[in-house]
């Protein structure tokens, strides 16, 4: 989109590489994370800067395949390749990595990655319900707190935690306000532009800056909505995208959906709607953080009914005409769960559903285009277009 605010968003990543260098020079520690389960509150409360690490590009995959099996998920290979080829500036400047045992591929990759950087691995339970899992996860949060305190020679006080929770909740509210604008029909922003915001915000060193940027973008889009402006024509099929994490570089399916005449109005995935829930303020901060993070509906959890309910609710709220479930090759949890999600949605009402399994390469672009075009044809022919569930 053409706008001064959006151009600020597009250069966020490049600009923050320089800022990160400055942070290092003034002695602010940097902590790199890969996943939504990394509790950013603890990192902020330790006076460190949390940044997302690169893992959404095909480029470093051949290098990663010198060590990792080829049939592993591209996200794991890309993350590892970026690190070993030293092509992710955020990895380069990180003092510590925080990672989680989300899936089998990741946890074994982290064993290898820890040869390159100090890495703190959080043991994530595989179930969300029950005192056992909660207590286990809380212990893991305390273990991370100790590691951060020890590494950075700081004390993480209750007060610092409260402040961090407040700051990150403000960021989540700003994000939700922005995402919710796409409930407007037609959406005021393309899925590709929205993905650029979602992707780049993770590299921002200063939380207050990214909050301000998102608020200004939201204000600008509100004006567009009021003026009746949209990049889409009325009647454009509205797509909810769920499944594996996507970012710039692994945006093939988002791009294809919009090239074929659809509009991605909602990303249920990790960087977007999954991250919107707030940490409860007021109570014991560590317990509140534990509860909020363990409730994230990732396919590495079993059961993972929360995701089905979230997808259903979002499909309704965003008036989605169809749901596309994206799976990376080798991501067994999302791949198997796709069948269960399809069946769950079929039982709840009639909303067309398409699973797309692919990787970061461009080799299947035309095959995917055919599938997505055919899916959009179905949506356009449905008399109930615009109404679901």
């Amino acid at each position, binding site marked *: 989109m053409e706008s001064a605010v959006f151009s600020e968003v597009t250069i966020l990543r490049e600009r923050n590489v320089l800022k990160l260098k400055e942070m290092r020079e003034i002695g602010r520690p940097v902590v790199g994370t890969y996943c939504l389960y990394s509790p950013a509150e603890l990192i902020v409360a330790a006076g460190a800067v949390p940044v997302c690490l690169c893992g959404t590009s095909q480029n470093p995959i051949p290098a990663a395949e010198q060590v990792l099996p080829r049939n592993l998920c591209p996200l794991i290979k890309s993350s590892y390749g970026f690190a070993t080829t030293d092509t992710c500036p955020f990895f380069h400047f990180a003092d510590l990595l925080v990672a989680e045992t989300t899936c089998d591929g990741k946890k074994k990759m982290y064993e290898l990655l820890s040869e390159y950087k100090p890495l703190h691995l959080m043991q994530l339970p595989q179930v969300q319900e029950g005192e056992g899992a909660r207590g286990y996860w809380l212990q893991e949060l305390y273990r991370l707190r100790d590691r951060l305190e020890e590494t950075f020679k700081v004390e993480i006080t209750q007060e610092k935690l409260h402040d961090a929770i407040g700051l990150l909740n403000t960021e989540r509210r700003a994000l939700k306000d922005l995402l919710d604008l796409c409930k407007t029909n037609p959406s005021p922003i393309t899925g590709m532009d929205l993905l650029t915001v979602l992707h780049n915000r993770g590299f921002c060193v200063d939380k207050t800056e990214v909050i301000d940027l998102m608020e200004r973008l939201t204000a600008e889009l509100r004006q567009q909505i009021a003026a009746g402006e949209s990049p889409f024509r009325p009647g454009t099929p509205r797509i909810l995208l769920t499944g594996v994490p996507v970012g710039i570089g692994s945006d093939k399916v988002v791009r294809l959906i919009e090239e074929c005449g659809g509009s991605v109005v909602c990303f249920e995935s990790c960087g977007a709607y999954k991250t919107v829930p707030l940490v409860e303020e007021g109570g014991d901060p560590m317990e509140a953080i534990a509860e909020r993070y363990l409730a994230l509906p990732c396919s590495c959890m079993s059961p993972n009914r929360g995701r089905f309910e979230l997808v259903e609710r979002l499909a309704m709220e965003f008036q989605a005409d169809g749901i596309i479930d994206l799976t990376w090759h080798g991501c067994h949890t999302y791949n198997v769960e796709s069948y269960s999600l399809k069946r769950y949605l079929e039982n709840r009402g009639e909303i*067309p559903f398409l699973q797309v399994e692919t990787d970061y390469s461009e080799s*299947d672009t*035309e*095959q995917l*285009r*055919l599938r997505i075009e*055919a899916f959009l*044809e*179905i949506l356009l*022919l449905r008399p109930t277009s615009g109404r679901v569930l």
Partner: protein
Amino acid sequence: MITAGVDVGSTATKAVVFDGSVLGEALLPTGWNPWEAGLQALGSALQQAGVAQGDLRAVVGTGYGRVSLPFIDRKATEVACHARGARFLIPPTRLVIDIGGQDSKIIALNAEGSVIDFLMNDKCAAGTGRFLQAVTGVLDLSLDDLGELALGCQPAPVSSMCAVFAESEVIGLLSRGVSKGAIAAGVIESIARRIQSLARRMPPADEITFSGGLAKNRAVCLRLSEALGRPLQVPESPQMVGALGAALIGFYG
């Protein structure tokens, strides 16, 4: 009104000229230039129909080459075109099975003939025409001979569906002295099982239409019909179904 449909597939390019019924049709190998193949197929179909290109109200393109055709008025996916074509030729159709040169697809239709769901194989050529072609190469048979040889033979187990790995598996079977007929039957069996598992993911249907080049092969039809436990309807020119569907979309909208 006269319309045309051009289906540029990975192996063959097809064109149909239509005015309420089929006036002319053409089929030729796609080769390396999909654009040229599309133009030539359209040219010969027009010639057969005795119609000038200027008299066409609409030309609709489909198939993998659809993006590269400069002379079409609009494009539609193979999914939409096969559904339309099959429904026109065999009106009760509720499920279309199309095995083409590089992909296979299963399309479910509702009672009104609208596409409600579809499944396709991955980017590899597993269980497609190209897969069979690779095997006929090793066995030194034509596709028709392979079918005839397979009839009545006990299938040898062929587990790999991959066009590349199946070739080495077949070479392994030959070196163990397994007969050509058993290998041919085994290869067809593996295609039938693959399609069966895809079809089971679709709503159950009794009226199944089989399109694409492989539908001309008697042994494939028989084995697939057995695997699905239903009779299969095969149109007279199963390879033309997509091009016909494209022409129908131009004609009826």
